């Protein structure tokens, strides 16, 4: 798969820009603050329906404009698909696939498959568990779009259950009775049902990632240290979960909810479930978080993205790879090894401030970014 064209209207700093892209490596060079990242961010938005930099849509729209439009032509198996997204903060976003509008935004997922590595990804190693859950769930949705629905259902049930616990908590603190918890059993049933589906998806995904992450880390770090990852559940004694069937997981979750009922009522929130789980990253014998150096953390984050890329690639549809501002952070050896790893990809988008940072193997089509324009220079 590759992106043949990208057109932005009122997106970030661009009033209007259109770029024709080529297969293989495409390098965007420009000084800081010229809008290199904005280009890959726009494509990332098409792939995941979210920005990798900000949680809300407002910053994506050029100051003074009402809405931003991202139009892109994606080629897969020699067939071209047009995707158009219109982003309007405070309103529902709209999308078109081909020439026809889509009723559910979710249907756009999968039209462009992209793996994006950016400086923000350092948070995968150093940040909160929520970053790692997002990594897993985004990849899950890319592979099987139905998980977007499972995740949405789970979140809705969780919200309702939390509201119930919260009301009872406040009623009790106000000196009254415990409040009405008679429907808690019902929410347990539904939380366990959707939670088990999500869990089964994540566990399968982690199992598939383990060897790929180890391989990718080994490659970027030239054999210095071995990267291991495991899923840690918030609701088992030692955090481990055996890969069980969905039915079994549902039962286990329901038991865990029963067991923590008293403390949940006490604290007024849901303490058990995939929304509190984590992905434990270790380097050798020590956890990566807190122990790994800056360079090691960086390599680990990169390994996680490369593993995601490998996984999607092995399943048939080759995703587009985007490396945002990566090379400046790596030493010469790591740069060369990274370039080698991705040299046979169908399309790699690279952004950098200094072109000399990019290894020769990745110097394909070259674009200059500056003053709100993108110019092809070779």
């Amino acid at each position, binding site marked *: 798969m590759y992106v043949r064209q990208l057109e932005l209207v009122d997106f970030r700093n661009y009033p209007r820009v259109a770029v024709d892209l080529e297969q293989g490596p495409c390098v965007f060079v420009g000084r800081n603050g010229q809008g290199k990242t904005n280009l890959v961010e726009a494509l990332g938005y098409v792939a995941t329906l979210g920005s990798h930099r900000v949680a809300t849509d407002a910053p994506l729209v050029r100051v003074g404009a009402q809405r931003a439009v991202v139009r892109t032509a994606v080629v897969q198996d020699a067939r071209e698909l047009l995707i158009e997204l219109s982003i309007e903060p405070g309103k529902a976003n709209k999308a078109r696939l081909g020439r026809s509008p889509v009723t559910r935004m979710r249907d756009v997922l999968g039209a462009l498959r992209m793996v994006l590595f950016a400086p923000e990804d350092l948070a995968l190693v150093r940040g909160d568990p929520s970053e790692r859950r997002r990594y897993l769930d985004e990849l899950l949705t890319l592979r099987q*779009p139905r998980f977007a629905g499972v995740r949405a259902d789970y979140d809705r049930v969780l919200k*309702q259950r939390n509201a119930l616990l919260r009301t009872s908590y406040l009623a009790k603190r106000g000196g009254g009775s415990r409040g*009405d918890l008679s*429907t808690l059993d*019902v929410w347990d049933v*539904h939380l366990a049902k959707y939670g088990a589906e999500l869990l089964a998806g994540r566990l399968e995904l982690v199992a598939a990632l383990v060897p790929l992450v180890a391989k990718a880390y080994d490659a970027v770090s030239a054999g210095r240290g071995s990267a291991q990852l495991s899923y840690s559940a918030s609701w088992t004694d030692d955090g481990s979960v055996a890969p069980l069937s969905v039915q079994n997981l549902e039962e286990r979750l329901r038991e865990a909810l029963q067991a923590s009922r008293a403390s949940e009522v006490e604290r007024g929130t849901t303490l058990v479930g995939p929304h509190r789980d984590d992905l434990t990253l270790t380097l050798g014998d020590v956890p990566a978080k807190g122990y790994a150096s800056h360079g090691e953390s960086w390599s680990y984050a990169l390994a996680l993205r490369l593993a995601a890329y490998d996984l999607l690639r092995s399943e048939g549809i080759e995703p587009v790879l985007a490396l945002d501002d990566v090379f400046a952070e790596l030493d010469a050896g790591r740069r060369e090894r990274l370039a080698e790893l991705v040299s046979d990809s169908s399309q790699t988008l690279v952004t950098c401030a200094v072109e000399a940072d990019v290894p020769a193997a990745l110097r394909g089509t070259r674009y200059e970014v500056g003053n709100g324009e993108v110019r092809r220079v070779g």
Partner: protein
Amino acid sequence: MYEGAIQDLIDELGRLPGVGPKSAQRIAFHVLSADAVDVKRLASALQRVKDLVKFCTSCYNVAESEQCRICRDPRRTNEVLCVVEEPKDVVAIERTGEFRGRYHVLGGAINPLEGVGPDNLKVRELMTRLSSGEVKELILATDPNTEGEATATYLALLVKPMGLHVTRLASGLPVGGDLEYADEITLGRAFEGRRAV
């Protein structure tokens, strides 16, 4: 901002569901320019709906007398009871002409975010109705969303000891639709609920 009565009317209209400030303004000026007779008729319709319409004492559907039209109908069976969220769901099911039993309108669904629990719904009334033992099958026809499903599960657990035949409306593919256009969740449910032919 307008003065006096016209702004009052715009404000009142703006409180109605689905009516934004622009629509409220348009309706208000339409009323202003309409015939006095038409406006009187609208005003009295609004009055009468509050004065005359009551809730049926057995099923809690809207009615003009003690009991609604459906509960009064002697040709319908008491053995099948269909539980719905709103009176408009009754109308929807009646349009199919397939159902010959009675209804029970809950008046909503369990929704902790909105502060709606079983006590705010006609659940106790439902249990009283079921205790007579006349009902053989209970159909749970709440909406197929998070809140409707939770309400259905809640009722199913609640009536379990009574040994009733409890059913849930099937969810799946729309008639006349294309498989390829169905979303994964609907298609997944349709697979779950497939039947032998």
